[in-house]
């Protein structure tokens, strides 16, 4: 999943550098908060460990192929997410410089696609919530597989987004995504299983090595929401940039069939509904009237934000309802 410089435009490369740099500065701040001099060599050696372990092939039963470990989730489980993110930066930088695996300009993208999603999204939104009440073999497997699969899916999707926005490749976004996602679903599952196998071994032999903070019964909804928000804003914003250049799949199909982008709605009910929609829509047709990039991007972010907000609202309502039901049960 390492991206090459050739696939990127300077603007996309620079923007992703900025995003990764902000995350790195925040991680440095967090690591310094509970800093012990001993942590630095441990982080360094663990980085080298993941580097070496990634080169070992694991045979996948029933197939002729092999897989590797998923570095981000494993490091986050051992060192905590912030130290893991810094270790991943070191690994990606060395891979890029020494082995030409990923470009120098693309480093920001690679850090984001491979380290951010695994260390923050994978850890805070999946790994930690699953194992927060204590570890077990089943929980480790579930947390590792889900963490690896979803962070890899987001990473692969971001590769397609970053390449398409850069405008270097002529490959349509839909074809790119259709090729990337299924492959990374398989890779993520295998990487998750290998990561789980290693974590189970550590848990059963030297559990003190695992990051203790993960099992503390302290669930930070704020952190989950912030990370989800960042993912939604970035993916949503980038996706709408892509959408502005490629018409939406449905509109495209309509265009192919009727020769127009939107269907004529001369039936009175349709006309009335369309009128209502036109009046109530804050951002008609996902833009500010004209087709400028800032407008589409902004409306993409707003739209994603609204969807995320709706999901959070539903989750909160569901949570309150569940609590109430539990209280009722306890009363009786």
């Amino acid at each position, binding site marked *: 999943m390492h991206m090459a*410089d*050739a696939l990127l435009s300077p603007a996309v490369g620079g923007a992703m550098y900025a995003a990764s740099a902000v995350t790195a500065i925040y991680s*440095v701040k967090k690591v310094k908060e509970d*800093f012990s001099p001993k942590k630095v060599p441990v982080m360094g*050696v663990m980085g080298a460990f993941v*580097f070496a372990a990634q*080169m070992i092939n694991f*045979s996948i039963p029933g197939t002729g192929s*092999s897989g590797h470990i998923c570095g981000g989730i494993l490091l986050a489980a051992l060192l905590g997410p912030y130290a893991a993110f810094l270790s991943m930066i070191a690994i990606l930088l060395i891979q890029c410089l020494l082995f030409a695996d990923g*470009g120098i300009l693309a480093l920001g993208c690679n850090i984001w696609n491979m380290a951010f999603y695994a260390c923050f999204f994978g850890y805070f939104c999946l790994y930690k919530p699953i194992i927060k009440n204590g570890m077990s073999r089943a929980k480790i497997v579930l947390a590792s597989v889900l963490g690896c699969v979803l962070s890899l899916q987001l990473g692969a999707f971001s590769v397609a987004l970053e390449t398409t926005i850069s405008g270097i490749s002529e490959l349509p976004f839909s074809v790119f995504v259709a090729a990337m996602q299924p492959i990374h679903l398989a890779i993520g599952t295998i990487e998750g299983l290998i990561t789980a196998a290693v974590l189970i071994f550590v848990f059963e032999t030297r559990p003190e090595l695992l990051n203790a903070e993960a099992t503390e019964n302290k669930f930070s909804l704020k952190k989950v929401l912030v990370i989800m928000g960042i993912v939604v804003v970035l993916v949503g914003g980038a996706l709408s940039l892509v959408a502005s250049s490629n018409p939406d799949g449905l509109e495209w199909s309509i265009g192919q069939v009727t020769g127009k982008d939107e269907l004529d709605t001369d039936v009175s009910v349709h006309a009335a509904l369309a009128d209502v929609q036109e009046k109530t829509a804050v951002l008609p047709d996902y833009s500010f009237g004209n087709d400028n990039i800032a407008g589409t991007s902004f409306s993409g972010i707003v739209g994603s934000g609204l969807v995320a907000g709706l999901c959070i609202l539903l989750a909160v309502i569901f949570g309150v309802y569940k609590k109430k039901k539990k209280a009722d049960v306890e009363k009786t």
Partner: protein
Amino acid sequence: MGKLSDAIYEVHYMDTIAGIDSPIHRVHPLVKLIVTVAYIWFTVSFNKYDVTGLITMVVYPVALFSLSGISFGHSIKKLRVILPFVILMGILNPFFNREPLFLLYGITITEGMVSGLTLLIKGILTVLGGYLLISTTRIEAICYALNLLRVPEILVTQILLTYRYITVLLSEANHIFEAYSLRAPSQKGIHYKVWGSLIGQLLFRSIDRATGLYDAMVLRGYNGNFRHSQLPKARWQDSAYLLVWMAAFAVLRYTSLTALIGSLFVR
């Protein structure tokens, strides 16, 4: 396992060639880092149909290979890591963009063909740019440059330590894998039953090593701050190197040098 021993060899080889003496090797690491980033930046900023402009950027690798004495042959090995993906993307371009651009001896050249070609050239040039940095600058010097750029100390130390320990842990992994292969000669990879214990053992050895390393560092006066080896200060030649390359990149990028040269020959 070939992959692990290849990687160990690669790290040692890069360390050796970065340590030789040449005018390019003597340039200040920060200057080389800035010039490399600028080179890659200018290279990727070329329009996807501007093959003739992009070709002029080959000046930089040609100059640096000849001035530094680094072998070009070895750099081809580096290209094989990232190039297959770039080639695949480049090959697909002619299929997705068939707009004709011009006729060449009766063959219609499409936009997709040209953009595929620029993608390939960009891929080669950017990898060479990065390779020329690492093959003429030791990683300690790059870390020193990052330090000058105010990259947080903890991150710089992290890069340095990871790099130093890569060869140690690669050979550790190699020992484990070789021992495993000798007991399971016909297997392609590690059997799923020992996935956890094999890597787990490597992990424990790594952690024990980290503890030993920390103790050794403390005995030598380590208190949380890492001291970088002293590197020579920037000389006037370094400023000249920076200015010349920046000016050259700007000229190559913003003037159509090939068209200008061509017009001298074609009326």
